[in-house]
């Protein structure tokens, strides 16, 4: 079990309100990701759920029980910190065993659980090392091991992969997703990396300045962003926004179109411009296009290696059905 409910939760540090009244339900077994720009209150929200920070007003319920004033240890949640927060003077074995020792389990049970967790996380060979003697990815696994031995009702992750290099990040992302498949435990995961959010989440919560902009599955957010902020935040490269004449044609204040929804054509096409920077990735090519008369720059994604260079003229054909329309307040027009 691990259903978490926030009811009219607010948080202020002194006189600055970081989180205005907020309602959110995280269902049991769900992998929920909080995304948003830096400083939007993702960590704060996670720490409120963990109990490391006191709620200013409102209620938190875990599995239907009011947990607002329950101490962190008694909430049955486990947290993995960005800095891993391993205990440097204890061996990996002692680190993983620590929550069990605090729960006063007998030694045989502790040993058995630690061995089991180590086996799952490929840490068996490192059990007698200190955290200082491990690589970043291994430390991350120890931190996860320390969380899973407690068999919590939910895991809380605060940007657990941000200290790892790109390749390791992709690997750990898969491992965490697999762990979720296997344990089926609720996971709440904070990141500012929208690729992590898109690939891992069952449900994404997009935050801006403490306010929930939209909640939905990754594809819902991608296909029907509720406003310009979400539209710009989800998707990479970023959606192109056009105002003025082009938007008026579609009966909107602003229209957005994703780079992957504009086709590069030999000739004709509705739009044309000159190639600024062309990023050739092999599988894709990203063009940053100027002088279109639509916007400062237009980003376009072409499949495969398209051999257009800096300064070339490019012909473009947007897919009409893929336009997103927004009104003057930035909200989606259905």
């Amino acid at each position: 079990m691990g259903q978490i409910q926030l009811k009219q939760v607010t948080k202020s540090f002194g006189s600055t309100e970081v989180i205005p009244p907020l309602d959110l339900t995280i269902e049991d077994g769900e992998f929920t990701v909080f995304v948003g720009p830096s400083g939007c209150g993702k960590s704060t929200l996670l720490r409120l759920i963990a109990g490391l920070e006191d709620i200013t007003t409102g209620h938190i319920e875990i599995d239907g029980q009011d947990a607002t004033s329950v101490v962190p240890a008694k909430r049955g949640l486990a947290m993995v910190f960005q800095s891993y927060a391993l205990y440097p003077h204890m061996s990996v074995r002692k680190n993983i065993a620590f929550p069990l020792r605090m729960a006063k389990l007998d030694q045989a049970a502790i040993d058995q659980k630690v061995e089991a967790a180590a086996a799952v996380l490929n840490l068996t060979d490192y059990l007698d090392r200190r955290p200082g003697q491990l690589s970043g990815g291994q430390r991350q696994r120890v931190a996860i091991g320390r969380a899973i031995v407690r068999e919590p009702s939910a895991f809380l992750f605060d940007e657990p992969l941000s200290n790892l290099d790109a390749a390791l990040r992709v690997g750990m992302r898969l491992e965490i997703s697999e762990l979720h498949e296997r344990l089926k435990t609720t996971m709440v995961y904070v990141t500012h990396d929208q690729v992590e959010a898109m690939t891992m989440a069952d449900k994404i919560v997009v935050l801006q300045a403490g306010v929930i902009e939209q909640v939905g599955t990754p594809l819902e957010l991608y296909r029907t962003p509720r406003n310009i902020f979400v539209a710009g935040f989800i998707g990479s490269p970023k959606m192109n926004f056009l105002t003025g004449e082009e938007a008026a044609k579609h009966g909107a204040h602003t229209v957005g179109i994703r780079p992957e929804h504009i086709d590069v054509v030999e000739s004709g096409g509705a739009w044309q411009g000159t190639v600024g920077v062309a990023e050739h990735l092999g599988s894709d090519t990203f063009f940053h296009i100027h002088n279109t008369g639509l916007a400062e720059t237009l980003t376009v994604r072409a499949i495969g290696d398209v051999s257009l260079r800096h300064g070339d003229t490019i012909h473009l054909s947007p897919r009409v059905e893929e336009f997103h329309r927004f009104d003057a307040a930035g909200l989606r027009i259905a």
Partner: protein
Amino acid sequence: MATKASRSAARIMMAPAVVLLLGWMLVPLIMTLWFSFTKYLPLRGDSIERGLDWVGIANYARFISSSSFWPAVQTTLIMVGGVLLITVVLGILLAMLLDQPMWGQGVVRILVIAPFFVMPTVSALVWKNMLMDPVNGIFAHLWRFFGAEPVAWLQDASLSSIIMIVSWQWLPFATLILLTAIQSLDSEQLEAAEMDGAPVIKRFWYIVLPHLARAITIVILIQTIFLLSIFAEIFVTTGGAFGTRTLTYLIFQRVIDSQNIGLGSAGGVYAIILANVVAIFLMRIVGKNLDA
């Protein structure tokens, strides 16, 4: 500073300082060793110009067989141990207190450090005359206010009183070192332990204390070196009476009161040995924290 040329240049430039320091240390050490094997009583007309008589280990034998020797060693160890215990325990508590965010933190920190800037002689005199005086001292007034008989601190509880005075002087040092160590503790570790179900006491025991181990080691080693040679505090308070005669003080009495430089030098060599024994002993117990 990595090329060969820059390294040898560094060596040449450091040489004068090294030579000076070596001379500074070696000359007194060798002279002490030499005197300790000779009969050197200036009042009886012995002097270096006229040559000193070699007496072998007679001074050593006499110093160690003196009835004051072992009590002095014991007093020294009790005093050093007592001060270490008080400063480390209170230092940890004060450091944790000062680490809490509070109003007027800066001022409070300076106040805590203040005793360290007072000269040992001055602070001992202040304690003796203003606080511990059995008639006019603040403690005496306090005791009388509560209807108790004032304590003659420096006579009836002389060793404890001196331990108290010296601890007061060294507490700032311990607090300061431990405070910087506590400030370097990653708060996420404490939060992780909190979530792992460790109550405050266990967080202190399993997280804070191990984190402080290295700083505590440093405090103990440095303080021991200085505490073994405590002198001014004893000189101005009890003058070595009432069971406060440490090894350092005994040597002083042999050299100055009895004007026996040979015997005092032998005592000095014993003091060096004691200091080394204590240092090795401490290194063994706590030193492994240093290379962790």
